[in-house]
């Protein structure tokens, strides 16, 4: 192995354990000196690249979504949910959905509460046959960091409500269209995706929170409303931006 090749391989990978390289490294005092320098440098490099503070609690956060709610937490959530039933109509069987993380449950609860708060406003619009323009919808989508690749189908629907709402700490787009049995809410929430689809459990509404790429989409309607076509239409259609 000539000096040029040796030097190139030494710089590319000073820890190279191949026999021909190790033999070449030992072939002259100059090469041994170079390897000594490179090994010292490699040690510094490893030390520097490894000297990064790991955020406290990171490991716990990374394993949290894989853990089922503990019995203690479930009992706590059940008690809390029971106290919310009167106000929100939240059904307790949400907790029968296994594998949901604490964040998933929190998002579910926040969403149900939000729907009950907003429902009187968009229900009036529904009852009065109100309509809003597509440009109003687009303004809300843009402000929430959401875009639709092919908005034509949604734009052709009878939209009655569009508002920017604070959900899960992010600016979320809450749209409402006219369904068969009542208003249908379509909500885009740019936050950590739920672990899997979360069925909404409520006395009035039904629907799901669905993880889509970097965020979540929720399609929610009155009982008996068929929501599959909305989910199908929107699921592959969302683009998130910051």
């Amino acid at each position: 192995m000539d000096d040029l090749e040796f030097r190139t391989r030494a710089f590319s990978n000073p820890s190279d354990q191949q026999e021909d390289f190790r033999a070449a490294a030992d072939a002259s005092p100059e090469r041994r000196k170079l390897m000594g320098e490179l090994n010292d440098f490699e040690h510094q490099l490893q030390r520097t690249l490894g000297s990064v503070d790991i955020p406290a609690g990171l490991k716990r956060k990374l394993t949290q979504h894989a853990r089922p709610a503990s019995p203690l937490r479930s009992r706590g959530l059940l008690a809390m949910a029971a106290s919310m039933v009167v106000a929100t109509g939240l059904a307790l069987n949400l907790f029968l959905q296994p594998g949901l993380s604490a964040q998933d449950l929190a998002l579910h609860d926040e969403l149900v509460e939000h729907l009950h708060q907003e429902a009187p406003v968009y229900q009036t619009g529904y009852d009065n046959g109100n309509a809003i323009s597509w440009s109003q919808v687009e303004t809300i989508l843009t402000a929430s960091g959401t875009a639709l690749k092919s908005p034509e189908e949604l734009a052709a629907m009878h939209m009655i409500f569009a508002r920017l709402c604070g959900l899960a700490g992010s600016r979320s787009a809450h749209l409402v269209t006219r369904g068969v049995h009542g208003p249908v809410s379509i909500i885009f929430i740019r936050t950590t995706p739920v672990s899997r689809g979360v069925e909404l459990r409520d006395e009035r509404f039904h629907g799901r929170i669905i993880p889509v790429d970097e965020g979540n989409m929720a399609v929610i309607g009155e009982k008996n409303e068929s929501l599959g076509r909305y989910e199908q239409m929107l699921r592959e259609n969302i683009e998130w931006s910051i």
Partner: protein
Amino acid sequence: MSKSPVPGRNNSDNDRRRRYEALVDELYQDVFRYAYWLTRNKGIAEDLVQETFLRAWRSFDSLQNEKAAKAWLFTILRRENARQYERYRPELIDIDDVAVAEEHSAEPDHKQKQVELHQAIMRLDKDYRDPLLLQVIGGFSGKEIADILDLNNNTVMTRLFRARSKLKNILVPDADNEEAGEDLTDKITD
């Protein structure tokens, strides 16, 4: 007596969770270090690592060979970084933001050298920094780095050569550091 399907399912879920937690335990620190050096921003790195492991958990069943887990995670992380952060962020290098963990035993000279090396790595061109991070933090071979970066092996080895030459030049100016490596890609083996 009828058999309930539930115990089997629970065992399977528990096993999946246990394997995932073992994976987190073994690799999360290296994944975070890589994310930090890739993004050069601790906040973004933490978000990126959380997103990476969330995606890993959701498609954990697709991981057939757990020996390949590290390359799998690094690849997810790179893809997420490109998708979510890289295209929205200009290439900002804050060389004063030296987030080197405090080494209480370090002597002033050693600490100064570490800060200089940290800043030199920050200044290194992305083409050179990327394979170096994968080699030193990830412990990947040239072939594995080539697969992750979608480059050929000789290009990777040439970039590694130049990365170390440049860093060494910054720290110990020495004109002959970079004389090789220009046309030697055919001589480099993994």
